[in-house]
């Protein structure tokens, strides 16, 4: 895994990720770890104070995209589809950490899976799996 500082600048360049306070923890070789702090503005259920599923989706999508970008030879990516399964509510007040892995990529498509945890490292808060477009440097023409 490489030094997160240049990659952190990459995350900082994404206005929405910055707005959600995302922090890149680790990246490299098709894997990424990104965390997001608890913030009362992102509450989805006022009765419980639990973070909105949508904010967790945004974290998962960013983390999966970062994993694809760090895959050897990747130059660009976009989400084709992403499925998120919500296992349990994230504990109010706790940071959420997403870990994504691009486990296969062709020249055109990348397959990614991810998990999200709060401070309890047991059962994940959510898991995700998705397909992403892959713009690779080895692609003919290299446009």
């Amino acid at each position, binding site marked *: 895994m490489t030094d997160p500082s240049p990659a952190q600048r990459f995350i900082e360049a994404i206005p929405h990720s910055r707005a959600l306070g995302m922090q890149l923890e680790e990246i490299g070789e098709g894997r990424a770890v990104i965390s997001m702090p608890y913030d009362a503005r992102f*509450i989805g259920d*006022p009765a419980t104070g639990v973070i909105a599923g949508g904010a967790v989706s945004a974290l998962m999508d960013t983390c999966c995209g970062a994993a694809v970008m760090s895959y050897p030879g990747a130059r660009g990516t976009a989400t084709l589809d*992403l499925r*998120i399964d919500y296992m349990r509510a994230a504990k109010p007040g706790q940071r959420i950490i997403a870990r994504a892995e691009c486990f296969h990529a062709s020249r055109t498509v990348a397959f990614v899976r991810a998990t999200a945890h709060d401070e309890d490292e047991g059962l994940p808060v959510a898991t995700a799996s998705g397909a992403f477009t892959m713009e690779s440097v080895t692609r003919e023409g290299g446009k």
Partner: protein
Amino acid sequence: MSRAKPEPVQVVKQRRDSALKALIGGIPYVQWLGIQFDRRGDELTATLPFDEKLIGNPFLPAIHGGVTSAFLEITAMIELSWSMLWEEMEKGTLDPRALDAQHLPRLPKTIDFTVDYLRSGLPRDAYARARVNRSGRRYASVHVEAWQDNRARLFAQATGHFLIPTRQPLAAPPEGTATE
């Protein structure tokens, strides 16, 4: 026996609008994203006004995939909650005047949500409408579509499954009855 006089239209509209406002106004994340809902009868249309903080790719620029996903999920969840509220309002079992941020019906929980990204989200307002395809006692399946300039050119669609909250205490069915 004379027929009861129909309620004045303003009274009906006010009741429905205040219920919708209470439902949406209490959710911080909906407010933070700036999502608004328009109502025509029971039909809702969600609007996500464009904002710089929604950008995911500053070079194109394009709306963040996570924003699209969140917008669709909120639209689906509000539609489902709204359809349940509507039913209770029409039956007269729920008085919207009793609704505020502290006294809202419990929101459905997302079980899973699958987003199909069809084209990149442009730096413009986005719209979405959801349809409850199936709503049983415990589970619901909701489909949602989002577009920008042209209603027929969707930029994303999604399907989600939701866990329906136990209906307490407003319309709890009598014990021993299984209603669906």
